């Protein structure tokens, strides 16, 4: 299946994978999390090992239809439990522990640079205030908060203004870039008039809901979007985790299910990848929360996903199974998962100093 667009959702703060895809048959899970374990009646069974937090119910149909797969106990090889540092390493695609090359560009940037396509002025976008470091160094990478950011500022006689500008650029050495920009503007102009309230469409009326809605519109416009980086933060649940997680998971699931439904056939060439910088400690802390851990959760949905499965080399939650201060062991390197998505590490160009050790085959 050909992936035209990767939608990377960065769940910032370190999502507690153990309370999302729950190892519901393990006594240790309930023993170590007396006040925050997700009760069985609040879950949906995925297989004979894992169950889904019921707040994600709206994406369960995707799982049933084989379009959504979870990858569990996955992690980035870093001893640092710093959000900042681990994200930096992930986005640049290089681990501090593999000394040697330290690229200045992001892993998605290097992936896209290696592709033959890509002449759109909106080839890749970061949605939000800041460019994603995964896109660092890519020409044709824009940062937009809303589609309005990729519009020509208001001029009285826009037609005449653009006509003149086109004439200037058509005769210059910047011709291609000028025309790409006009093309992109043209694609987006066709979407401008939509004024239905976002919650009517089914998206949560939140920053994340708006972000995914923007990505949906960009993909539908045909502008040639190849990567979109969307942030969803607030997963650093040191306190009162259960209530926070319920709300956030519902928001996540509603946004994704609306996004996939709205894209319809276009989902066949769109791949959603959701990831976090790390998982959380297995044992709960004293304030109904969890601290930074190691093994975490990723999920993929869309183009070519062999879903309806939880892919994992499950390390277990027994005393001897845990690592560090009591973390779920990360048995799969994030880069193994990402390498599969980009169809191989291209001689270490995407993840320098790394060669993939495993391939789950979660993509056709």
């Amino acid at each position: 299946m050909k992936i035209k667009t990767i939608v990377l959702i960065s769940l910032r703060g370190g999502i507690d994978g153990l309370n999302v895809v729950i190892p519901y048959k393990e006594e240790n899970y309930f023993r170590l999390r007396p006040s925050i374990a997700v009760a069985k009646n609040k879950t949906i069974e995925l297989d004979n090992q894992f169950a889904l937090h019921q707040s994600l119910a709206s994406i369960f149909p995707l799982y049933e239809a084989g379009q959504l797969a979870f990858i569990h106990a996955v992690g980035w090889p870093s001893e640092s439990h710093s959000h900042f540092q681990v994200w930096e390493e992930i986005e640049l695609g290089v681990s501090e522990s593999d000394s040697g090359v330290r690229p200045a560009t992001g892993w998605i940037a290097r992936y896209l640079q290696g592709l033959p396509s890509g002449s759109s002025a909106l080839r890749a976008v970061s949605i939000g205030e800041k460019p994603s470091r995964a896109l660092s160094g890519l020409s044709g990478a824009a940062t937009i908060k809303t589609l309005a950011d990729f519009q020509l500022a208001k001029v009285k006689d826009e037609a005449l203004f653009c006509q003149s500008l086109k004439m200037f650029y058509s005769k210059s050495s910047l011709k291609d870039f000028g025309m790409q920009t006009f093309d992109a503007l043209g694609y987006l102009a066709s979407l401008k008039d939509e004024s239905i309230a976002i919650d009517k469409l089914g998206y949560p009326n939140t920053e994340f809901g708006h972000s995914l809605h923007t990505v949906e519109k960009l993909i539908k416009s045909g502008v040639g979007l190849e990567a979109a980086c969307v942030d969803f933060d607030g997963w650093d649940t040191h306190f009162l985790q259960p209530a926070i997680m319920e709300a956030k998971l519902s928001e996540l699931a509603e946004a994704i299910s609306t996004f996939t439904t709205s894209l319809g056939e276009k989902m066949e060439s769109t791949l959603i990848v959701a990831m976090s910088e790390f998982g959380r400690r297995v044992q709960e802390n004293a304030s109904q929360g969890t601290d930074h851990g190691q093994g975490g959760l990723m999920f993929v949905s869309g183009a070519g996903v062999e879903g309806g499965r939880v892919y994992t080399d499950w390390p277990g939650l027994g005393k001897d199974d845990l690592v560090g201060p009591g973390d779920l062991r990360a048995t799969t390197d994030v880069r193994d998962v990402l390498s599969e998505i980009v169809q191989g590490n291209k001689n270490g160009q995407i993840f320098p100093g790394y060669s993939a050790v495993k391939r789950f085959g979660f993509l056709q």
Partner: protein
Amino acid sequence: MTSRRNFIKAGALAVASFYLTGCNSQFNWMLGHGYIEPLSDQLWAGTQQELKIAHILKRITYGIRPNDINRVIATGDKAITGFIETQLSPSTISDIQVDLLVRRLETLRMNTPDIFEITSKQAISELRKATIVRATYSERQLLELMVEFWSDHFNIYSEKATCGQLKVIDDREVIRPHALGRFRELLWATATSPAMLVYLDGQVSNSQKPNENYARELMELHTLGIDGGYCQQDVMELARALTGWKVENFFWKGRVKFDDRVHDKSEKILLGKKLKVNGNDLEQVVDCLSSHPSTARFISRKLCHRFIGEDISEELLSKASNTFLKTDGDISELLKVIFYSEEFIAARPKFKRPFTYTISALRALGASTDGGKAIQSSLEKMGQLPFNWPTPDGYPEQASRWNSQLLPRWNFAIELAKGRLKATTLDMEAISKLSTLALATGLLHRGIGQEEVEAIDRLRSSDPESSIALLLCLPEFQFS
């Protein structure tokens, strides 16, 4: 590219300059105090000498202001060398007006630990203000360009930890004093800059667990270059040599100190040479790296790239590197080799990075700016807000990293011309009195096609402000 165009040349008509009143008080104040050059409707004659001066001014300033070319010509026979030599000695250039303007920004004079009483955001925003104001109005243009160059070369990301505050000090005490000085002193200053120690984790390095981050960048990005002939072992040795340099965290927060207790005192071999045991490791490291032939070549190449372009002859490169080595890394001498080379004079148009594009527009049209929020936000949208590049390689120089992002430039041009940027404004009344031809040639300093002039005129009659935006969007104005 333009040879088949119908060039319009007008005689050099010396017509009096306008001193017109703008509609806002900041503008009047700046005009009255001599910050802003009054616009001139003198037409571009395009003599050989003017062309040459225009070319040089485009490259070693942030853009040509009205009358800049005449001012250089008026200095007589050795106009060009005179200009270059003066720019290379910024202390001989009076810049009182800009000094006064920047003096209002109190954060810039603050030191550690007091500066931590100000938020990182506020500190860096004031430094950005000063950077924009200086680039626009300073007479010491080459100094400002070189400050930008070294700020990229020794990049500090203001969002990391306390770097927002520490960069203010780094700019004042590390980059500015040495921007046209000797490379060794600059390198020493950066190595002992609290901003650098925090940014590249020297701060968290110690003999038990030497952190390689700064060690690697010091060789890869600051001195030898990636192919400069060092290996992973050198990185590890260097990391050990650099241990002990710390930034105070509590009392005297932000001060740099050397803590002998966490310095690795065992033997180190850097680039095949043993460091003297019990010597000052950092002194030896800085000596070694700043005088290394790979460094001479790497810095020369980068400067050639900055001032000439991406294709540099081997001949010029080795001449420049030899000068670097012979003069003990004298940056001004190195620049002379570049500026007096034929390649510099014959250099092809270079795509302006967003910061240069923005400042050149302000200078060409005699804009007033406070360097504040509105223009900073435009720069961020264009992708080059100063001190906002996360990785240690600094904002890239290559055109290919910038030239696909035209829309934010067009939008900046429109917002500026429409008067929608708060505290960055044009004197539209003065501009309206100039002919399109005078405006266009005042921006481009070259001929412009009849068809272009007609297109701009057409828009000018219905929407004069947009026509000024259109001028700033001209493909030719994207190049210096």
